[in-house]
């Protein structure tokens, strides 16, 4: 005959563990509050039509803080990548997209800035003497074609959204920086060996941002007025 006492004890223990598991689950649910998303910033832009294109002008000097401004004459290249979308106000499907890249490097010996400016129309190289000039060329949007006019119905409100990145880092480089994390402890008997076989892995954990700085911008709503009729 089996002694029932140890079994009753183990059932009580199991019940306690189940209760603990439930509490842990509740703690999971009560976890951290949702953080503030990086909301796009409203930036006033100027829009005008030329030929078949809608053009936009604005300034992105906020992209550079004092550290990144100082980096311009470090001798290392800096890159600005600008993506723009135009979409009807209140809708999620964009009607146009543009991708622009601007790069600069300072020649320590000749003391000049060489800029390479690329947009859908092509690439051009510019040399300037002063840092302020280089900054202006990197951060100004001056008559940039953002959409074809035939895609913009008259009198309908649209919005221009823009993501501007300073020195973005490729997905491959990001993966490489953190690759040592996924190499595991190596040589172990366990098949898995990944972090998540455990509740916790503790290490000094560096996270490289996807870019030195990122600006998320949206314009004020704009529309194409009806052409003025000739009397």
């Amino acid at each position, binding site marked *: 005959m089996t002694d029932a006492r140890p*079994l009753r004890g*183990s059932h009580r*223990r*199991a019940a306690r*563990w*189940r209760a*603990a*598991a*439930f509490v842990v*689950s509740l703690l*999971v*649910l009560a976890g*951290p509050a*949702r*953080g503030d998303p*990086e909301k796009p910033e409203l930036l006033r832009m100027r829009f005008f039509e030329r030929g078949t294109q809608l053009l936009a002008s604005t300034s992105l000097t906020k992209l550079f803080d004092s550290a990144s401004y100082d980096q311009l004459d*470090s*001798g*290392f*290249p800096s*890159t600005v990548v600008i*993506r723009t979308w135009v979409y009807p106000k*209140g*809708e*999620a499907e*964009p009607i146009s997209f543009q991708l622009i*890249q601007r*790069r600069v490097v300072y*020649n*320590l*010996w*000749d003391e000049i800035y*060489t800029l390479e400016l690329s947009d859908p129309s092509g690439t051009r190289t510019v040399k300037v003497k002063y840092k302020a000039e280089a900054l202006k060329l990197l951060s100004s949007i001056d008559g940039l074609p953002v959409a074809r006019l035939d895609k913009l119905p008259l009198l309908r409100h649209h919005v221009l*959204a823009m993501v501007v990145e300073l020195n973005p880092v*490729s*997905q*491959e*480089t990001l*993966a*490489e*920086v*953190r690759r040592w994390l*996924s190499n595991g402890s*190596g040589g*172990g*008997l*366990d098949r*898995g060996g990944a*972090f*998540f076989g*455990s509740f*916790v892995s*503790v290490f*000094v*954990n*560096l996270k490289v*941002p996807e*870019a030195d700085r990122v600006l*998320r911008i*949206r314009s004020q709503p704009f529309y194409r007025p009806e052409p003025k009729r000739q009397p």
Partner: protein
Amino acid sequence: MRTLAATLALLGLMAMGGPARADEPPPAPEHTIDTGAMAERGEFGPAITLEHIEIVGNHTTSRQVILRVLPFAIGDRMAAGDPRLRKARFKVLSLGFFRDVTMSMRRGSAHGQVVIIIGVEERGTVVLNRLWFGSSSIAPWWVGADLSERNLLGTGLSIGGGLVYASHDEVLGSRDQWAGEARLGIPSLCGGPWSLAFALAAVRGSEAYRKSGASSQSDAEHYLAFPYRRTTARASASYDITALARVSFGGRGELIDAELPVAPTRVLPDGRSVPVALHLEPGRSQVLSGFASYDRDSRADPLLPHSGSRLTIAAEVSGVFLGSSYDFASLVARYERWWPLRLPRHALGVRVSGGLILGDAPRFDWIHIADVNRMLAPRAQGLLVSTNAPLQALGTAPEKATEGELGGAASVEYVYRLFDRKHSRIYAGDLFVGAGLWGLADSAGVRTRDRALWDSLPIDLFLDAGLRIDTDIGVFELTVANTLGRVPR
């Protein structure tokens, strides 16, 4: 079960209910453009020559350890706008030894020559890789930890080890168990793409096997145990094919001393008595094997992935021709892929894994049920610490194998980024819900079937949900499956 279902439902609602951010740039097809890759292509600007590379701040790390990962060397001539100049910072960071790396440049001794100054800020390189703890009907408690030092005395060498202890309860023949492992790693041999790893492990265990009851009954009274010892040595060499892919090959030598019971049997619920195969040679036996593996990991963030994929394939062969007591071959593969969804904070992941053991493998090399069902506690450094029964959700085969020669799992996971703070010590947190199918069969189960197909399928469902948090002191995970695997049921 009701608790689990309610938790999953709540987490699901929370995850799906993440608000769409109508005021942010819409996710056009171009959303997937890797702007960083664009920035890292092409060179421009005047030519420069690297006259010298200065390194400052490396109080313990050897200068050579840093120089060998740089994508350029002293004397190289390149364009001032060469992307390698920016990439060098990340190459140094990828060592994992530094909190921050800064790069600057000054004029050299002649026109066109420059000196690059690399400033490093060293950090602690001790890593707590794993913690083992829990309680089950066969081990009232088990506890253990695995630690590594990734930059031994600044040489770039890695040493580490782990120790697990598990107490025993009422299982006849069981005893307290422990397992220990010591490792040495030599990354980037002579500054090249080769690396070496060595490991020594010792296990003093007692392996529980079922003597009675249905597979849903995991009480200690249904088990017997036999004592064994294992001593294992491993050596492997790895070659980095690219920055993200590597192949490894090596060998294993293992001594097993097992005091096996004579003619072990199990009484089935219907009263029949059947023999139990323990898959070990009695007394002393040895495993001598060779293995090879391939690993490619393109996930930008291996801790909280939202994009990229990882593929791992490993094969091992052991045979009498190598001097082994066991003739077997194994092949295991694992693949996961992540897709960012149209809403920027959401991602979907698919994981598929499988293994096949051919021949007469020792039981420790069989696929364990916890290798494919994450709702159960896995072996801790080889020790069997739990015999919890799997969740029976699909009404498939009621008697499921706990070790098998053919096994695998496929799951889908939905991830929602709760928060993402670039300038905080808590970087990001992901809420996730997932479900999948697991299956495990031994050769007898594959060959014979005495009931309807569905009733005999050795597959079932697993579910998981929880929170993963990435912080500057490591990564933490709270999940339903992980919790369930560590408590007696």
